[in-house]
């Protein structure tokens, strides 16, 4: 007979937030739900939570859900590319919640800055002035898209905190390395730890965001707890998960996918319907959660954020700098 002992990360069914509150339709619902989500979060054992500081977040009215259809929570948290926890999109949800600890979590700010340091994630949230809610489009390089209600803080605030020196031109983000907890790292399916980079001016753009939450709750492990980068005008793989180090550098840092397949993945990874991936078209995208015959929608230049970011790339050949 198999006697199963309950792991400390397992929750009783009663702690699960009812599905209907995840199926939000508009911002009013979203606002109402933030409170309920927090009540749910209060029931969770502390060991499971990522960065808890700052909740409930206040939605930033500049990035509303208006006109967007928010993707249901179970798809955002159950359809994940997080190769550290397996290649299949169903892998990260179970594998990232088998004892991998994202609390406490320390992130290091290093390199060409006047204020280097190591911060506990919750302290960092306090230092940057708390968190806010933003609804962003999310476009994967694999030609599918979601709409995600993130919680977190603008990356520009972290840059200000770090106080970069004049010769700092890039940010190099490094994810965690813990092969004991991450089966994908044991298999070495990519070069680990995962690395990503941004130009300093990209990092200071108003859209660049560090997420600590989704749907008004601390971000689940499989989505990159406790800190992940969100750059909604770029393909999803730029959004490095579970960041442990942010280094300000003089030269361009090579990102993991660029190292793996340079002819397919560049440094910029800006969403661009006119530049195909070598293996598939980027002109349109499947909408996650739209069902069996949900169809596609046209992909927008810079994922619809042309107004905010186009000026960053003036004079840059986007076909060559994919």
């Amino acid at each position: 007979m198999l006697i199963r002992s309950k792991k400390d990360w397992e929750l009783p069914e009663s702690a699960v937030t009812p599905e209907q509150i995840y199926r939000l339709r508009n911002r009013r619902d979203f606002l109402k739900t933030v409170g309920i989500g927090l009540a749910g979060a209060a029931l969770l054992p502390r060991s499971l939570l990522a960065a808890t500081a700052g909740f409930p977040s206040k939605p930033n009215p500049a990035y509303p859900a208006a006109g967007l259809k928010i993707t249901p929570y179970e798809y955002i948290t159950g359809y994940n590319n997080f190769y550290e926890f397996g290649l299949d999109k169903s892998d990260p949800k179970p594998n990232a919640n088998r004892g991998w600890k994202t609390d406490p979590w320390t992130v290091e700010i290093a390199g060409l800055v006047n204020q280097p340091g190591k911060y506990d994630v919750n302290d960092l949230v306090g230092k940057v002035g708390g968190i806010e809610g933003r609804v962003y489009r999310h476009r994967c390089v694999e030609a599918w898209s979601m709409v995600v209600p993130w919680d977190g803080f603008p990356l520009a605030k972290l840059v200000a905190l770090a106080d970069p020196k004049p010769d700092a031109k890039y940010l190099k983000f490094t994810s965690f390395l813990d092969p004991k907890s991450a089966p994908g790292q044991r298999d070495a399916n990519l070069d680990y730890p995962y690395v990503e980079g941004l130009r300093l001016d990209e990092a200071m753009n108003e859209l660049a965001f560090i997420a600590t939450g989704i749907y008004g709750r601390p971000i689940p492990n499989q989505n990159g707890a406790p800190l992940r980068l969100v750059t909604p005008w770029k393909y999803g793989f730029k959004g490095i998960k579970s960041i442990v180090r942010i280094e300000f550098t003089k030269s361009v840092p090579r990102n993991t996918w660029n190292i793996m397949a340079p002819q397919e993945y560049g440094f910029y990874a800006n969403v661009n319907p006119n530049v195909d991936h070598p293996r598939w078209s980027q002109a349109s995208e499947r909408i996650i959660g739209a069902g069996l015959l949900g169809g596609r929608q046209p992909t927008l230049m810079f994922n619809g954020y042309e107004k905010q970011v186009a000026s960053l790339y003036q004079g840059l050949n986007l076909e060559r700098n994919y």
Partner: protein
Amino acid sequence: MAFLEKLLRSKALVTAAIVLPGLWPAWPLLRQDPSVLADPLKYVLHHLGFMACVLLVVVLAFTPLRVLFPKWGIALALNRHRRLVGVSAFVYAALHFATHLLYEGGFHVLASDVTKPFLISGLLAFSILLVLAVTSLHAAVRWLGGRRWKNLHRFVYLAAALAAYHQIYAQKVFPIQVVWLFGPLLALEAARVVRQRIVKRT
């Protein structure tokens, strides 16, 4: 063993073994698995392509099995179903192709497909299987004559190579299933070639 041999001679059983795995995507859909429901058609698309590869490998394994083990009843029983399994591989490939068109939103995607080696390889493999399926009719065999028919149907090896390439490039990192799918076939074919050389020499 004799019982298994008898079972494997049954066309109905082999047909069931071909059709039932194709219905697999219904299971996670019924289970409401969010990772499948997120983009269910993609799941169906990949599954149909995978089934086509499996059946192609299986039918190609029949001949080397018979050559290597000429007295083995199971190899002989399996070789009765060469056309059935081969045509089934084509049917799955056709369903996979149709799903691709549905997934991408119409025939217009073919214009962009033909510029990409990953997609051309799939299209070519499918085209070869289409020709082979059509010429698997008795009338076509008679019309072509044995030798020409045989030469034409050797293109199945090219289709298999293209399918392996297509499957490798369907993923962002090397999919290990290609090795355990096509690896044993390669080993069997190598053994068959060695064996035929030895037989020729003696």
